[in-house]
Structures are given as structure tokens and as C-alpha cells.
């Protein structure tokens, strides 16, 4: 068994998902202890350009598979290829982002290789020679540490924004190894029939700033000031379940236990009481701001800064103050 670390570099339409670069940065750090190479696995169609990018972010070697069968992420051909590369090269670890695709690929490869996959890690550290992953459980009410003590490779999916993104260095050198897919199109059961992009730009899970509205916004038009604040900050728009269930905003925006788990640098909650299930999705945000007219709202227990007041006054004032300062 080798000491190399594989990182699966996820791309959608040629753009790499943020947690992949964070995983490469983490792999470099862990590689210092393990002493192996960081090998980026770049799969797709027309993605040659990403190989050099992966090297800039810290890969020593890139396994590049460029083929029409890999254009869209589909589990069957991606898992078959990654498992076959892992069988051939025996890495010690495989890392990937804990995105919807990574959360499918990691466990599928774990089954192929009869090994362990730790989901949704927020920390990865060596302790007494063993790699320990920290991960939230019970909706973030508790934390746990997990290891893959014996089986190899050990697979970990890393949560977006939980690990630092490395600075790319265009001067770095690395080796690009071309590899072929292992499945033919006619062997792949799943066919992608269409894609309908979510409108509203910034993806919640990648966003550095999120502005969310809850029942306190009072209706669909109540989201307008919240949206304006988000747009000034180039933030993603979030919502509580109460706002989603009321039909004021689509489910794609829901933050919380039954919505998205987010970890931005700044989370601004407007008219959200801060129920435990909402907290489950945002409690690891670095700085939390609450705007609520009820000084007893539980969100103030979690928030770092709060303004007690009517959001229809406070939010536009905040937007104006930001416009004045950020210009």
C-alpha cells in the first residue's frame, strides 16, 4: 500500500467545485505527514485545461480522463474509473468534496474497494499516527471523531468551507497522466436527459456570505429587502423552513436540518427565530448576525451580533450603510 493521496476534482461545465481545491490543500498538508504524492483525478469532457489548474492548486500528478462518456457526472462511469485507478495505484487516502456528487462517489468507491468512507468531515488531523476526522452528527448538536483504522484506501468527503482554500501557484510543476474510461456508453444505465439551472446565482453551500429570511418577512414580497441586502454583499439567499413551507421562496433556498447545511464567513438571519432545526444548518458559520424584533428569540443565543428591531427598517438601513462603505 502506497502513501499517495488521491483527490477527486469535481467539475460542472468546466468549473471546479470549491471543496475540491480545499481538498487538494488538505491533501498537501496531510501528505507532509504521510510522505506521498498528491494525485488529482480530473474526469470530464474537454477538461484538459483543468489538469494544469489542479497542479497550480497543489497536485503533484494528475490522472486526466477526457472522454464524452464523462461529460456529465454519472456515478457508474466515474466510480468505475476511480476504483480502477485506486486498485492500480493503491493510494493511502482518497479525498473529495462533500457535495451531492462527492457524497455519491465516495461511498460507491468504498463499496468497490471494501473500505470505509467518512462523510462530511469538518476536520482532518493525525493523532497518534492515525488520521482522525471530525464530523457533526445529530444535526450538529454533537460532534464525533471517526477513523478508518485498517482498510485502505481510507476515503473522506470534506465539507465545503471547512478547510482553507490554497493559493494557486502557476509556477508549480507536475505530471499529467492520461487515462481511459473503463465503461463504454452502452454499458452505462443512466442517461442525463436535461438540466435546469437554479436561478439566483450564488450557490448556498459555496457562498462566503448568506442572507436569510424567515417567517418574519411576512410574505413573498417581504423577501425584497433581504434580496437587496444579499445583492449588495454578493451573498446567496437563504430561508427558514417556515418561509419555504409558506411558499414564499423555493425549497432550494432552505437552510437547516431538512435543507442545506452551510458554513459561510457571515450569516445574516432576518426575521428567523432560530429553531434548533434551523441552527442545525448554519451554526458553524464564522460570524452570525441576527435581526429580529423579539429580544428573546433563540437566534440571539447563537448570534455574535444582533440588532433588535423591525427588519423592514433595519435591513434597508444596513443595505444603505453597506453601499456607503463598500463603494
Amino acid at each position: 500500500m502506497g502513501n499517495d493521496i488521491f483527490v477527486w476534482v469535481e467539475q460542472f461545465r468546466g468549473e471546479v467545485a470549491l471543496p475540491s481545491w480545499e481538498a487538494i490543500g488538505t491533501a498537501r498538508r496531510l501528505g507532509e505527514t504521510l510522505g506521498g504524492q498528491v494525485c488529482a483525478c480530473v474526469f470530464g469532457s474537454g477538461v484538459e485545461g483543468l489538469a494544469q489548474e489542479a497542479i497550480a492548486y497543489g497536485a503533484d500528478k494528475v490522472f486526466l480522463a477526457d472522454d464524452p462518456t464523462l461529460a456529465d457526472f454519472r456515478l457508474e462511469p466515474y466510480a468505475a474509473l476511480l476504483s480502477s485507478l485506486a486498485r492500480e495505484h493503491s493510494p493511502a487516502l482518497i479525498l473529495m468534496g462533500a457535495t451531492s456528487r462527492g457524497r455519491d462517489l465516495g461511498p460507491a468507491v468504498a463499496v468497490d474497494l471494501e473500505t470505509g468512507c467518512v462523510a462530511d468531515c469538518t476536520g482532518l488531523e493525525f493523532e497518534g499516527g492515525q488520521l482522525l476526522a471530525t464530523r457533526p452528527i445529530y444535526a450538529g448538536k454533537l460532534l464525533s471523531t471517526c477513523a478508518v483504522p485498517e482498510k485502505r484506501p481510507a476515503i473522506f468527503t470534506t465539507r465545503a468551507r471547512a478547510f482553507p482554500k490554497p493559493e494557486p501557484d502557476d509556477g508549480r510543476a507536475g505530471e499529467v497522466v492520461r487515462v481511459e474510461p473503463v465503461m463504454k456508453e452502452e454499458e452505462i444505465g443512466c442517461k442525463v436527459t436535461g438540466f435546469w439551472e437554479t436561478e439566483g446565482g450564488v450557490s448556498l453551500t459555496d457562498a462566503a456570505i448568506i442572507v436569510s429570511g424567515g417567517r418574519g418577512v411576512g410574505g413573498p414580497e417581504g423577501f425584497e429587502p433581504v434580496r437587496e441586502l444579499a445583492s449588495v454583499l454578493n451573498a446567496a439567499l437563504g430561508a427558514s423552513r417556515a418561509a419555504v413551507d409558506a411558499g414564499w421562496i423555493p425549497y432550494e433556498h432552505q437552510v437547516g436540518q431538512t435543507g442545506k447545511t452551510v458554513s459561510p464567513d457571515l450569516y445574516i438571519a432576518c426575521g428567523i427565530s432560530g429553531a434548533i432545526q434551523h441552527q442545525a444548518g448554519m451554526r458553524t458559520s464564522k460570524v452570525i448576525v441576527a435581526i429580529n424584533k423579539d429580544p428573546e428569540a433563540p437566534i440571539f443565543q447563537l448570534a455574535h451580533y444582533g440588532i433588535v428591531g423591525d427588519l423592514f427598517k433595519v435591513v434597508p438601513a444596513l443595505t444603505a450603510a453597506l453601499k456607503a462603505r463598500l463603494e
Partner: protein
Amino acid sequence: MHIVVCIKQTPDSAAKLTVDEAGNVSWGESPIIINPWDEYAVEEALLIKERFGGEPKVTVVSMGPEEALEALKHAIAMGCDEAVRIWDDGFAGSDTLATSYVLAKAIERMGDVDLVLFGKSAIDSQTGQVAVEVARRLGFAPLTYVIKIAELDPEGGAILVERLLEEGRQGVEAPLPAVVGTVKGINEPRYPSFMGIRKATRAEYPVWTAADLGVGPDKVGAAGSGVRWERIFPPPAREGAAEIIQAETVEEAARVLVDKLLAEKVI
């Protein structure tokens, strides 16, 4: 058509959790319920059953100790036809690798399965891996994050779904048999009816053991697992509550807040 729904029992999401030095988690008097995500999977199975005039059989399966009975009863009360509990003392301590092995063995034993439905993840361990692992083991089409089953053609052996990904919705067509991992938004789970609850109390809950499934001890429990849980602990407490920004006017409060956020370097 035979539809299987895999469900897990979990503590209530509102339960107050405590953890002792040894890492044992306790949720006091709070009841054990069906994993909330799995209700969507049960509902979807029942909707399909209704769409096909009641013909499809819906079997609900849970690998778990006695407590899992509560979750199975809930699913029967919602309208599932049959329940199977899978348990053996050797299954304790299984990670998703081992759990998926056991579930796949149980589904193989049923033989005639067209569709296996799952919840998005279990709210306790939060791994969200079992569905895709079962699909991989059985060679079934792996359809996760499904927010809509647009078409289902059991005769033609095909299914068309919409999946909810980070960037939007993806349409995927796949052959049957398939694994479908559901997400919230696919439906609105029904409450058990009074008749359903009566049915659930009288229903049979057979238990399939390791021997029934032909599962060896090396494939389950700690031996069959890849992941070991080392420690469970409460997250570090946040010191104090929010700093409430007080000012004469809203505009002034907003300016103070912007200064604080600039100082925190988050904007």
C-alpha cells in the same frame, strides 16, 4: 411491481441530547421515531402504489434492534403492506459499508424487487451513504437526491427522475431495477390514519437474522466495517450571547454593525 422502502429509527429531532464521558448519547424520555427523511420515501412508495391502482406491493425494511419496531409500525400505519426487521446481535456497530451489505442481502432474498426507496440521510449519524452503497452492491441504477419521479414504466423497465443538485435540477433516465434516494420536497408525507394505526398494531413483524440472509460474521459489525467511531462529544460552547447593537437610530445601528463586520474581515 414490488417496492421496498428502507427506513431507520432515530431519536426525535427536537430531543435534548446529552453525552457522557464515554461517548454514550442519551435523549432522555424523548421517543424513538421513524427517521424524518424516510417518511418521504414511504410516502413516495405509497403514491406509486396508488398511481398503479394498488397493485404494487410495498415492503418496508429496517435493520435495527427492537426499537426499530416503532419506525416499522409507523410505516405500516401510513399504508405499507409488509414489514421486515433485520437483526442479529452481530450487526451492532455496523457502519454504512456493513449496513448496506446486510440490506442488499435482504433485497436479494426478496428476489423480485423493482424499486428501492431511501431517505436522504439518517438524522443521527448523518452519513447519507446507505442508498448509494446498496445500489452499488446490487447493480441497481443509483438515483439519489430525487425530487420528482416524472415517469415510471414497470413493463418497459424504465424510470425518469429529476435530481436536485447544487446548480439545479438534472433529469435522468435509468433502467429498472433502481434505487431512489428521496429528498424533502418530493411529496408531503401523510399522517397515519386511525385504521392504519389499528392495522399496524395487528401486523406481523418478522425478523430476518444473519443465518436467514447467509451473512457471515466477517461482513458485519466492527469486523465488516471500514469506519470506526472514536469519540462523541458536545461542540465547544459559545461564550455568551450576541452583542446587541444599541443606537439612537436604526441608521446608526446599521453603521456600527458594518464597522464590526469590517473589523471581523467577513465583508
